[in-house]
């Protein structure tokens, strides 16, 4: 008994050949886009810049190490505070005060309803003769958004950068700096990259109050409209924000003892 091979469609070869051709075209397109974007970013780097780049990278690594160690040490301090041998009543009162102070000042992680915002560089091609800086997120954009959020009643805010990788979110506290060095934005002196994600916890209607807060959003709204910066916002039922990790010791001042 001979096994009969199914008749081969006369279109079978061209069909897969077309699929391959289409896929190769897609590779060509994506590859070209990748190549172009690499070329656009390629800059002339002097040896002095190379040295500085290495130093900046080393400092960033050192910063990550120090922050990890501070987080670990803070955890140890809290564990000592909770198991202290002193008077149970005094200990309980003090621990409650410590927990409340950490909560009020941004040192404790928190959760609650709020709002997530994302702002990223424009995807538009920079027209000849225009500054590329106009098409990227600038430090003033982030500052204005944060100011508008506080003014709209946010109780806690964090800022993070990048898609999935990168440093953890930075919780904003009384001493927080939002600083620009060239196209880089540093929050709490941690360099972040776009897209920037701002998460804020606040009472119902925070998103509506924020979007209605035109007084602080004029500059950034104009840049979103004119340069097509990418911007999106969404209300959330429950967000979790980290506590601030960093130095909380005053170097130039000291707490003034409360008057008895």
């Amino acid at each position, binding site marked *: 008994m001979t096994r009969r091979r199914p008749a081969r469609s006369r279109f079978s070869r061209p069909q897969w050949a077309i699929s391959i051709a289409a896929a190769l075209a897609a590779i060509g397109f994506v590859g070209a886009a990748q190549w172009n974007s690499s070329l656009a970013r390629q800059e002339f780097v002097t040896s002095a810049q190379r040295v500085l*780049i290495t130093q900046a990278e080393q400092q960033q690594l050192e910063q990550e190490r120090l922050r990890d*160690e501070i987080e670990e040490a803070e955890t140890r301090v809290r564990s000592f505070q909770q198991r202290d041998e002193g*008077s149970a009543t005094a200990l309980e009162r003090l621990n409650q005060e410590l927990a409340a102070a950490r909560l009020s000042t941004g040192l404790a992680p928190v959760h609650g309803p709020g709002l997530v915002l994302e702002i990223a560089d424009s995807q538009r091609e920079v027209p000849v003769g225009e500054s590329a800086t106009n098409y990227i997120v600038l430090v003033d954009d982030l500052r204005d958004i944060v100011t508008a959020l506080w003014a709209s009643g946010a109780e806690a805010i964090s800022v993070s950068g*990048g898609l999935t990788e990168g440093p953890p979110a930075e919780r904003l506290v*009384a001493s927080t700096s939002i600083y620009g060095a060239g196209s880089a934005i540093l929050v709490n002196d941690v360099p972040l990259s776009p897209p920037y994600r701002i998460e804020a916890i606040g009472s119902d209607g925070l998103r509506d109050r924020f979007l209605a807060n035109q007084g602080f959003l004029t500059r950034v709204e104009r840049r979103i409209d004119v340069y097509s910066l990418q911007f999106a916002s969404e209300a959330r039922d429950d967000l979790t924000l980290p506590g601030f990790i960093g130095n909380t010791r005053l170097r130039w001042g000291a707490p003034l003892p409360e008057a008895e």
Partner: protein
Amino acid sequence: MAARIAQLSLSAVAVIIGVLLVGQLRSQARPIELSTLSAQELSTLVETLSARNVELGDGLADLREQIRDYERAELQGQSALELSEEDLQRIAAFGGLAAVEGQGILMQIEGSFDPIAVNDLIHELRNAGAEAIAVDNVRITARSVAAFGTGAIEIDGVPISRAFEIRAIGSPDGLHAAIERPGGILTLLQQSIDAVFVVEERTNLLVPGTQRDLAPQVARPVE
């Protein structure tokens, strides 16, 4: 046979497309491209990061000292409530709940400010490393924002008059230099606002604690 080749080819092509798409997506994310920063910008970045690391290192050393104190107290069977009280004062001073005294700068300002200009000035002081700031007698916390109130600029509900003072605790030299640097915040404000600024370094400044209740209403601690 041809079908198998076709499947393998399509799989290979799909893998290549995937790799390229991920690369493209990541390039859209614009990691901080240190190579695109000028030597001056890089230098500023290295300086900022280095100064921050010194502060973090100092903070870590203090924390380790605090841990040693707790360990000693525990070994001797003593209470360390006093240490925890100190910690509470430190946190309260850091976050604006308690008054702080120390060195810094005093800025006497008079002019037709708008809230954005006042907020920009506060941001600039934070960027220059101010550890505690007060505008007149209002302590600036993370949540403090200058905004138009009823007839005047208000911070935390307190009106700020046309002539006001800012006290900032921090390195007197560092704060002064950052505020008055060429092209800095004072230069920018003087170009857009009719205002007079007098900046003095002080060795003994007092910044009050906030009068505002900072306890969150909806944010809850993560257990």
